[in-house]
Structure formats: C-alpha cells, structure tokens
C-alpha cells in the first residue's frame, strides 16, 4: 500500500470537494473501490470507459502499480468540437 495524491479535473472536481487529497492504495482500481464507499456518485463516474487516468502526468491503465508520493489524476473525456 502506498500513499498517493488524488487530483480530479473538469466536472469530476465538482463531485470531489469532500474527497481526501491523499489516500493509500496499490492501484488506481483500488482507489476507485475505496472512493465508492463514501462517494458512490464520484466512483460511478470513474467507471466511465472513456475517462482518462494519469499517474505523474503519464496516461496509464487502471491496473498501474502505484508508488509512494504518486500523483493520480482523473480526467473526464473531452470530445466535442
């Protein structure tokens, strides 16, 4: 388990005002499961297939192993034009 920083972008930030900025987890999937307990609405948004996930500003998959101090960012899809 590692202590990681969480960042939410776009409309996800509106849903995450009460969410702690630091959490312990070993993968992003685990972060999502933990958030589901207290923040079900946010967690269900995080299940969107087109959501982008970045660890230390590198886009990764949900099973990416995390290290202490990693910054995990969740970004909604931006598709309009």
């Amino acid at each position, binding site marked *: 388990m590692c202590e990681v920083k969480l960042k939410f*972008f*776009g*409309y996800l*930030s509106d849903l995450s005002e009460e969410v702690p900025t630091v959490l312990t987890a070993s993968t992003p999937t685990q972060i999502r499961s933990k958030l589901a307990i207290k923040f079900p609405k946010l967690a269900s948004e995080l299940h969107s*297939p*087109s959501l*982008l996930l*970045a660890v230390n*500003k*590198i*886009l990764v998959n949900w099973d990416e192993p995390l290290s202490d101090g990693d910054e995990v*960012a969740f*970004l*909604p*899809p*931006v*598709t*309009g*034009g």
Partner: protein
Amino acid sequence: MSLTAKQLKRHNRHLTIDSIGKEGQTIFGDATILIAGLGGLGCPAASYLCGAGIGSITLCDSDKVEISNLPRQTLFKEEDFGQSKVVVAKRVLNLMNTDTKITIFNKELDDKLLNNFYTVILDCTDNIRARLKLNSHCYEKKIPLVSASATAWEGQLIGFDYRHKRKLCMSCFTNQEHYHVSNSCTQRGVVNSVVGMMGTLQATTVLRLLLGHFDQHGEMIRYDGKTGRFITLTKKPDPTCFVCSEPTNQSKETFINNTNVRNPENDTFL
C-alpha cells in the same frame, strides 16, 4: 512561390519575426490544409490560418448554420441561418484574404476528399469515428495531424507528426468502448471561448509544424478554463494499437468497419 508586394505589406508582422521571416511566410503560402469540421474549433482555426496567409484551405462540413452555433462559430451571422456552413465560411474567408484558395466540401468526410494532397490535417470534428478515420489516414500517408476537442470548461489538443514519428497515434488514446460514447458536447455543453482557444491553438500548431518547430508528437495538452490551468500529459504507445502497431488482420478489419459506419447520435460538428 515568392511573396508579392501586397503580401510583403500584409504579412509585415510575421516577416519581422526572425523564426518566420520571408522564408517561413513563403512556406505558409505553399501549404494546403484540410480543416475537417467547421464548428467551434474549425471556425477560429480557419480564420487564423486564412489570415496567416496559408495558400490553400479545404473546409469539410455537411451542416447548416443554426442559432445555437453563433456563440462560438465565429464565421457565421444571424442572417446565415439555414445556409451551408462551408458556403458561408468560404464567402467570409474570401473577403478576408483573396490570396488563400478556399475549397469546400459540403458533405461528410469521405475517402475521395481525404485522397487529395494536404500538408497538414486539422481534426476539428466532434465524434470519435471521424477522429479515428482522420488518424488512420494521416498515419498511413505520413501527414501531420492536429486534433483538438472541448467539453464544458475543458479543452484538449494533441498533435502528431507522422512524417517523422511512427509510434503513438490518436488511436492509442482510445479504446473500442469509445465508439459508444455519445456526443458529450450536446449533453454537457461547451464554453465558447474555451473551444475557440483550442481552435486557435490548432492554428498555431499548424504554423509550428510548417516551420519545423514541432517536437510534441503525442503530447496531450489539457486546458481547464474553470481553474485557468494548463497541464501536459504523455502516453506510452499502445502495443495493441490497430494503427501504429502490428495488428492481427481480424482486428484491423473490425477497426476499419467501425470507423466507416457513422453513429447517428454523433452527426453534428459542434
């Protein structure tokens, strides 16, 4: 082509910049740019590229001007309602700069249009199918692609210089499930100046690509208009990508079929 006396005057503000000068301005004049989608991204991109003295611009969009377009689609006026976007845009751009040749396609993106020659292609569309079609074409023909999008307060831009980089492409950033994402712009709205800024950034990126100053292949720039912050994200190439990796024949066929069929939910350029 060399610059005319009128062009030397007109482009004076570019010519005085060392990294552009007469040589760079001539490169702009020799360029042929395709702008796919004439919505909130395509309008400012077309406007700035025409103003910058790009020699030839092709516009592609099958839509007509609607009242909800006006806040961000800056080439159109109230009197243009119901008219073809590309027809109105050509008229406006011709008034701005008679030296830029404007070619219009009042229809959806197709292979015939794509098979013309372009120096750079701008993805100003609002749906993933069109984006992936442009991507696979640009990758195959080694044409730089500048893709942008915007939803609500957020904008995104990714450029790909397929002339020099063959790993990491637009398709690496997506997955099959993306095909089912409906048009988030209609559902979640878009801030007019945010999408406008992304279109303007696309135009700047084209100029940089033309001058050979582009070193951001596959970097994703995100702008959050609500916080006023930019971030840059990177990605490793997807080893299972249909376009830039070695796919199995079956998966490639599925991919091509998917990009050819247009989802009726996503058929407007915002």
